[in-house]
């Protein structure tokens, strides 16, 4: 990996504790492939039980790639995207 690490953005890390619903959907990406982000930046949001859940970036780095595009349905624990960082 040429001295960089890759971190997955895991939907389980931001899952609302009280959600019971199986339906979930990526609503908005605020960054695109190749974007530089800081730790804590809001990078996307998804919908669970009609609530939009904001996903902060766990680390600083470069988004590459986005795995789940807008409108994609997914399950808890699926990876939204990867971030490469030094």
């Amino acid at each position, binding site marked *: 990996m040429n001295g960089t690490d890759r971190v997955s953005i895991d939907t389980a890390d931001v899952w609302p504790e009280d959600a019971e619903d199986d339906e979930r959907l990526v609503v*908005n*990406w*605020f960054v*695109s492939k190749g974007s530089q*982000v800081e730790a804590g930046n809001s990078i996307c949001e998804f*919908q669970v039980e009609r609530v939009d859940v904001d996903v902060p970036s766990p680390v600083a780095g470069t988004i590459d790639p986005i795995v789940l595009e807008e409108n994609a349905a997914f399950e808890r624990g699926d990876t939204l995207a990867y971030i490469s960082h030094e």
Partner: protein
Amino acid sequence: MAVPADLDRTMTMSGAMVEVIATEMRADEEMFYMGEDVADCDGIFDSTEGLREEFGRDRIMDVPISETAYIGAAVSAAQEGMRPIAELMFVDFFGVSMDQIYNQMAKNTYMSGASVSVPMVLTAAVGGTYNDAAQHSQALYGTFAHLPGMKVVVPSTAYDAKGLMHNAIRDDDPVVYLFHKRLMGIGWLPAPDGPKTGVPEESYTIPFGSADVKREGADVTVVTLGLHVHRALEAAEDGVDVEVIDLRSLVPFDEETVLESVRKTGKLVVVDEDYRSFGVTGEVISRIVENGLGDLDSVERVAVPDVPIPYSRPMENEIVPDSDDIIDSIHNTNS
């Protein structure tokens, strides 16, 4: 759509609006926001998302369902020198409080011989396309633009929403800031592609009265605003070389940008989500006729026929202009 190198960050329209309000509120302790369900609920259309958390209920104020009282109170607070934003949850509710809006907010500066000013923003959600029927789906752009004394702003993208909101808050006169529900980027009201754009972190203003050419073209000029900017851009993919102009503000109105485009194309299509008669389409056309008649070969207008917005989906789809209606009108200018 590739994000430019300096715009790694994209935002929804609501996100951009909220960011500006937060920035301005941090800078000015005398700013506050009043509306129904704007505190604990973050605004029904995400117009205040997260603000109560930072500023508390004293500055992000839930108010009684008394539009006359809180909009009138905002007018007076503004005259006292504070910088309030009052939110009318749906623009359709304007009837309840119109006296305070058009007889106080809009007229006090003029009536007082400019001895008072009213530096406030009135925000309101507008627009249909989700079957919310006659009392929750109107645009009413023309109604506010018709009555003198208010600046009227309608953003169509996150980038524009940010610059226009900074300008609205800093303006010393009342600004009516109408945001289209379908453009906000709400999970349960999916937006078309387009309103979500790159947004710089730093503050910037977009002056009112500066229309934006959202697409350059040589054959036909399409003038529109709000949601219909995106429908016009979709229609522009149909083969004719269309120039799409986003007015961004109705008051003041950027006549020059439209005239310049019509000088080039000779053909004008005006598209509006408001009612057809005595409204935006008629006004835009008459401005161009008054000052550019010689350049004009053909004119079309696309708007809601003069009926209230019906509930049922096929009925609403029929009367709210879509990209096919715009394409038809573009073709009509050539026939």
